[in-house]
């Protein structure tokens, strides 16, 4: 028996900000969930199951927060699942929810991811003082910056590429009312003049720390037929994992990322992603990851990704827009960041992206990754149902 087609009929997110002191964690997730229900014109009673994700419990120090969020998400008397795959969790949470619909376990599933970074300390949560181990010597960006230098060496990319990405994403964020950073006076010169924190990464090429939640309503063909607005259809979705460290690990272009993308393209019948996919919303926590992922995801040959960025192809009005929402560089509630990517892809093919809508976005890829380039999750959504 073939899979049930899966449709996204509701999307909701909070206005992402540095600190939401007016709401509890429950209040924050509730806000995104209610907006997703409103978009789908459904009520709590229409939801069969809830699938929730966030980054490690240590971040906010609430152990298994899903236990106390059941009331806020109308999950009482229904199955509620928690997904946990580090920074990629927002993506894998959506895929677990989608699989429940595809397998006809449930007809309509609410999926949601969040982080309240203002009540959290991610850096502390990720660098506990483990006895006998050498303390980390570099802080957050120190983990990523050497990989960026490796990419620059391998590809021969000019050192201005990272600033072009940051300048583009921050301008895109100005068109997205939910984005955290709205830097109205942003210029390329300002990005390039911002302090060099972890050479080769500048301050303006790093992501902010945000409070936010994102929710989606996923449903079957019958649910999609009742939806008040055009749905986004799942054309392919996959997850892959690999160890954080192993001999031969390629941090610049991890094998698990390549394999994950290949699986999605196979499911969706994508022969040439550069030609067949209209836009990409990818997880870029530091600007240089745009050209790196363009190669990893097959949009450019190895060493050539930066040329797309440099030529303006990834601009909002380019031939392959990347991070139309402003991306992780403009909004980063860690656990929600993957789902925001997936939701943006769905918004685009639904034609609901407002001022940052890409014209004729028929097939859009959403991408998330996390851990030490360890977990990957991606989905490709389309404006038309699969096999039609």
């Amino acid at each position, binding site marked *: 028996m073939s899979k049930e087609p899966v449709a996204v009929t509701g999307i909701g997110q909070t206005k992402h900000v540095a600190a939401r002191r007016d709401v509890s964690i429950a209040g924050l997730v509730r806000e995104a969930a209610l907006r997703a229900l409103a978009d789908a014109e459904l009520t709590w009673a229409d939801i069969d199951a809830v699938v929730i994700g966030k980054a490690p419990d240590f971040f906010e120090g609430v152990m298994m927060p899903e236990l106390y969020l059941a009331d806020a998400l109308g999950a009482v008397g229904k199955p509620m699942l928690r997904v946990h795959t580090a920074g990629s969790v927002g993506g894998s949470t959506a895929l677990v929810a989608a699989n429940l619909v595809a397998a006809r376990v449930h007809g309509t599933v609410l999926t949601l991811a969040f982080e309240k970074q203002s009540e959290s300390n991610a850096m502390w949560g990720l660098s506990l003082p483990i006895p*006998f181990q050498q303390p980390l010597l570099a802080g957050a960006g120190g983990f990523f910056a050497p990989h960026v230098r490796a990419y620059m060496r391998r590809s021969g990319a000019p050192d201005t590429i990272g600033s072009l990405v940051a300048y583009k994403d921050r301008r895109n964020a100005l068109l997205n009312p939910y984005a955290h950073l709205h830097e109205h006076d942003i210029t390329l010169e300002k990005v390039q003049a911002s302090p060099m924190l972890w050479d080769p990464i500048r301050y303006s090429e790093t992501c902010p720390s945000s409070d936010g939640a994102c929710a989606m309503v996923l449903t079957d063909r019958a649910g999609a037929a009742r939806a008040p607005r055009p749905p986004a259809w799942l054309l392919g979705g996959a997850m892959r994992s690999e160890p954080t460290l192993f001999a031969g690990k390629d941090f610049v272009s991890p094998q698990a990322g390549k394999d994950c993308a290949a699986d999605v393209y196979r499911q969706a019948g994508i022969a040439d992603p550069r030609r067949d996919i209209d836009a990409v919303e990818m997880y870029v926590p530091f600007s240089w990851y745009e050209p790196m992922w363009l190669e990893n995801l097959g949009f450019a040959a190895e060493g050539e990704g930066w040329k797309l960025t440099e030529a303006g192809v990834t601009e909002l009005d380019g031939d392959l827009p990347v991070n139309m929402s402003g991306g992780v560089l403009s909004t980063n509630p860690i656990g929600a960041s993957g789902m925001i990517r997936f939701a943006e892809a769905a918004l685009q093919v639904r034609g609901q992206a407002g001022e940052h809508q890409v014209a004729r976005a028929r097939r859009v890829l959403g991408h998330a990754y996390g851990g030490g380039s360890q977990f990957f999750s991606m989905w490709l959504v389309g404006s038309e149902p699969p096999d039609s």
Partner: protein
Amino acid sequence: MPEVLKAPLVVEFPFTRSLGPVQSAFLTGLREGTVLGVRTTDGRVLVPPVEYDPVTADDLSDLVEVAPTGTVTTWAWNHEPRRGQPLATPFAWVLVRLDGADTALLHVLDVPGPDAVHTGMRVRVRWAAERTGAITDIACFEPYEGEAVEPGGHSGVFENPLTGIVAPARLDYTYSPGRAQSAYIDALSARRTVGERCPSCRKVYVPPRGACPTCGVATAEQVEVGPRGTVTTFCIVNIKAKNLDIEVPYVYAHIALDGADLALHARIGGIPYDRVRMGLRVEPVWTEGARYPDHYRPTGEPDADYETYKELL
């Protein structure tokens, strides 16, 4: 074989919490000596209150004052109070249904022994001398023989409401790095770096984890690597990290020790930061009594060819 190491690991952090309207009223109420519940859509009063109806998922905001007296619905005796528990002497954990509430609140009952507590007994709140807006503003419950106290009609609206709290968390672990890393650390004390070779793929892991992450098989064959190595990639750190007493800027590098198949991470010294490059040959610099090299410095050898380390970035 050296002994497997063990050490205490204490994880603690003062988390902050934004309360939202319902928890704000509840905790501000405790500060003011008032216990508040919330009325659900079906008319029940929940204490402690919740923000969302557990049956209908509706928003809840109808705050209701309940009495400081109530009835024990069940209990368990605690013979040996631990650090941070509400009382230092043995006590009963109790669920108390306060008069006017439909649900029970978890707290403690101060009685001399388990014979002095029973389900159905009447109790009342003993307020803490100093109250800050926390569940510990109720110091404990105590036996109560008097009349039921009529609750006041507080609306739940307070001056200077509490909007956030600090919730300190602490976890106590005993950490062991296991056999392989214990052997690695033991060898470091003689300033030797010893990894382990995978019997299947023959790769040498430093530090060893006791198993090959690619092949999934145990590793046992010890291999000494280094002490020299090659900088495969690096960054220049320009901002001071918390708890690190290193002058910026400095170079944080991935170093592939000769004979190792995985780079380790260390600081580079003995050379101006802006002259560090990929391929630089380095060696460890030890300080007396330290477990790890303080940093690595140039050996003066010619730089390694990119082809020799490009798989080790």
